């Protein structure tokens, strides 16, 4: 029993060392994060403002911009997470990954730490979306518990999509292929979800896809937590259960694929 606790503590500590490593890198070179922040700005300012005028999308008691803001946050989390996985291809090519794999760091801690560091990067995007949402008059919920909930959701979802991205990186093995596939994969996640329109306006087959898409549950949770008048369609319990289960499965797969990167 005692050894299980010691093992778990050590596992978490090692995962956090990997997160620390990524945060240190981010501090030395924040340009990528700034570049990535351009995208949510464009979506909210251009797409959002135009669609808010058309009133073509039924968003219940929310204005279209209110409805859109959590969707765009989820989108920027998705993008930053998906393209984050590419770094392991780099690290494999340079032999950096080999040194980590030859150290006594558990493979699972490498997988979890790498994925959670996507969470740290995603939080920078959350800050940008919050500032912007404030500027364009989205009615936000400033309750500290709700804010903590948003942080938790963002980190969890970023971990999930980073793990997914790492799996793809381990499978395709080259940067060129990854870039291609990364583009192809992010779009369906984004459009087959409730991020920019409610699922109810989709054709039935797409509704089914959207219900299997973890991004939908992330957006649902964010809508409930971020907005003053936000509500969750599925309930936060369902949202978090889906997100946590998906993350656990993906981290497990990632743990098995990690050592293959050194061969």
């Amino acid at each position, binding site marked *: 029993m005692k050894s299980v606790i010691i093992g778990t503590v050590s596992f978490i500590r090692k995962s956090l060392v990997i997160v620390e490593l990524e945060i240190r890198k981010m501090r030395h070179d924040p340009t990528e994060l700034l570049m990535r922040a351009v995208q949510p700005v464009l979506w909210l300012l251009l797409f959002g403002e135009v669609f808010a005028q058309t009133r073509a999308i039924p968003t219940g008691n929310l204005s279209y911009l209110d409805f859109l803001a959590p969707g765009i946050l989820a989108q920027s989390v998705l993008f930053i997470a998906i393209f984050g996985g590419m770094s392991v291809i780099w690290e494999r090519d340079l032999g950096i990954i*080999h040194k980590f794999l030859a150290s006594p760091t558990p493979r699972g801690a490498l997988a979890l730490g790498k994925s959670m560091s996507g969470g740290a990067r995603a939080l920078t995007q959350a800050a940008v979306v919050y500032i912007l949402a404030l500027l364009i008059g989205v009615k936000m919920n400033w309750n500290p518990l709700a804010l903590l909930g948003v942080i938790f959701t963002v980190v969890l979802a970023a971990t999930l999509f980073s793990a997914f991205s790492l799996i793809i990186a381990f499978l395709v093995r080259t940067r060129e292929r990854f870039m291609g596939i990364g583009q192809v994969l992010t779009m369906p996640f984004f459009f087959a979800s409730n991020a920019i329109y409610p699922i109810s306006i989709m054709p039935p087959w797409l509704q089914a896809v959207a219900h299997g898409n973890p991004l939908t549950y992330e957006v649902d949770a964010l809508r409930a937590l971020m907005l003053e008048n936000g509500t969750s369609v599925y309930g936060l319990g369902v949202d978090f259960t889906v997100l946590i289960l998906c993350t656990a499965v993906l981290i497990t797969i990632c743990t098995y694929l990690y050592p293959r990167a050194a061969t």
Partner: protein
Amino acid sequence: MKIIETNALTRRFGDLIACDNLSIAVEQGEIFGLLGPNGAGKTTAIKMLTTLLPPTSGNASVAGYDIVHQASAVRRVIGYVPQMLSADGTLTGYENLLIFAKLYDIPRRERNKRIHDVMSFMDLADDANRLVRTYSGGMIRRLEIAQSMMHRPRVLFLDEPTIGLDPLARRAVGDLITDLRDNYDATIFMTTHLMEEADLLCGRVAIMHRGKVAALGSPSELKSAIGKEGATLEDVFVHFAGSEIEAEGDGRDYRETQQTRRTARRLG
């Protein structure tokens, strides 16, 4: 005590047998050199011993632990410097060491002192807070060696540790390797393409050729074995691996060449 023992250790890549029935034993405290032309299988052997690459057949133990079934125990007692320059360029030298100090569970109280000591030892103390991408190739190599010895490993695997180093830095690394053996009773398992270096440092060397060990012994034994007056280790190398050195071109595939180029580029 035999600290490294391999038993018909074999690794295939498709049809290619990169490491073919390798059976060697290294004594504790030895400096053992693995020599051989490009593509001979040296890195493949080291990757198996450092638990990075599972063997296709055969087995091996490091410090008494099986490299497949007790891999995490092996990882705790080894240090490893890969052939490629692999320090993280987007971190400072200090941060590179700090992260590994944490991953190797070096106690917090000792961490900074150990990092400082190895950095001074490798003559990097003044550059500790610079980003590694501004280091020269030789500085990166010294940083990597510093990192690999920080946790006082019992066995240190060095894959071409002096690649890209100037003669002074090479001598410093040579002294360091001897020092680690003398003061910490560490065992060194290294590869190199510099025969003089191997002659100077290594108690014994194995010459690998096309995945197989072609010769094994102390440099002086091998020199007398080829029956040539005043032979150097280079003559030994040519004797055991040279006959087919021309044909070696095809064994060195694109990937290998690409890595060499990349290394060359990073070495600037």
